[in-house]
């Protein structure tokens, strides 16, 4: 294992709780609309003109809305392993928030192991390494 410090690839978008991590979003204090990435300035619900928000952790489990994979290396700013290893991607519905959040699926899970409607949970996994630290991000993992 690398002894480098672990940091979020995108700072402030999720907790760094290794056991039960959560995405960090926001919720409009007036109408209750959730936002991810977090919105703290103006509510985008056309029926609401609030500018008051609370930061909230989002549900860490959901159901797969759809899924795919990346067979080719994406362009920068993506940092690819060398050689490139294809990975799966899932769009996951969060029931409480009534929203869909995209993310990679944990390493080692192939598309033929996924299905629309499948239960998944949020985990943290390495996105890439830098000279100074290990950048982790949220990924979806099928619930055993």
């Amino acid at each position, binding site marked *: 294992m690398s002894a480098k410090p672990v940091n979020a690839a995108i700072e402030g978008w999720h907790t760094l709780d290794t056991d039960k991590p959560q995405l960090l979003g926001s919720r409009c204090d007036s109408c209750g609309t959730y936002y991810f990435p977090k919105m703290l300035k103006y509510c985008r619900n056309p029926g609401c003109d609030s500018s008051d928000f609370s930061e909230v952790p989002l549900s860490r489990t959901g159901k797969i809305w759809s899924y795919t994979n990346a067979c080719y290396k994406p362009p920068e700013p993506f940092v690819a392993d060398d050689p490139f290893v294809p990975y799966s991607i899932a769009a996951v519905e969060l029931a409480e928030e*009534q929203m869909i959040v995209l993310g990679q699926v944990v390493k080692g899970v192939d598309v033929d192991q996924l299905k629309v409607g499948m239960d998944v949970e949020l985990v943290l996994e390495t996105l890439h390494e830098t000279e100074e630290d290990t950048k982790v991000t949220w990924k979806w993992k099928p619930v055993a």
Partner: protein
Amino acid sequence: MSNDIAILGVGMHPWGKWGHNFVDYGVHAARAAIADAGIDWKDVGFVSGAATMRNGYPGYVAGATFAQALGWQGAEVNTSYAACASGSQALAAARTKILSGECEVALVVGADTTPKGFLAPAKGYRPEDPDWVRFYLGITNPTYFALYARRRMDVYGDTEEDFGLVKVKNSEHGFTNPNARYKKKFTLDDVAQSAMVADPLRLLNVCATSDGGAAIIVCSMDYAKKMGKGDAVKVAAISTVTPTFASEVVEMPDIATDSAAAAGVEAHRFRASLPVKAYEEAGVGPEDVSVAEVYDLSSALELDWYEDLQFCKRGEAAQLVREGVTKLGGRLPVNTSGGLACFGEAVPAQALAQVCELTWQLRGQAGDRQVDNAKVGITANQGLFGHGSSVIVKR
């Protein structure tokens, strides 16, 4: 009072990877449209350009760039940028100008020169830009289209072969189109043997980016009559509506959808809301459509459009392609030009190219691609950041 305007002329520069300055394609297309209209360039009172973001300042002011290239003659200019709907917004600007009586004849033109490979975002650490975020996390354009395609498979029972049938159909349609870039009749086997890009989409299921140019001369109905062309093909509707909060479909380049926790989900998804306004404006329905040009960024997405355009109930689109309904000779041919499958996308020109094809179809000038007795045509496309359009033309 009618809100129709007449299409006097259409023209295109063939799609390809020519590597020339985008202005060359625009001028070529504009001159072809002017000649087709039988007018003089100096008769044009308004030049409405669709912008390109990949060619520096001349691209941002495309209307003026094309007006200068064709020779300054005092016309007013406008430039529209609305991603894939740029051409339709430029057409809408020309229509407004004509219907308000401020001008009689307008040139609408868009052209692009595209780089090779993936379209990549600007550099740096920029988490406030959703386009940067998704590339950083490994989510590219094909990801979104693959998510929609897979959902069709798991929810409606579509198969990879259904998506292949769309590609085979479009490649047959575009085979003789002089403006198409790819002229090869692909087989289902060719599609199945092509490399997987984003499961379930293979290389032959996703569209490329191309260079190209398209132009249209539009005018008031009075002007068309004076020209002896009162029976010209008409623009009957242009819809460029934005989405309605909260959208239930995750759209490029976002990493998440709106939350519907407070607002609920709207009855019409964004793509489906585009033709609703167009049908209403034109006073026609899906049962009146003779031919359609839709944005097949992926061959599976073409099936979504059948449902969004109300050609069938949601979930039943694959049946249309299986039965040959949307093939030339079928009841409702779709993408007779060959679609993006044969063209590749030249963003600011693409929505106009769709209108060019429908104009040729409604005039009976589509050659081997001709749909018998075509009377009403509809386009549909969707791009980034809430842009999309649907145009209806009729005879």
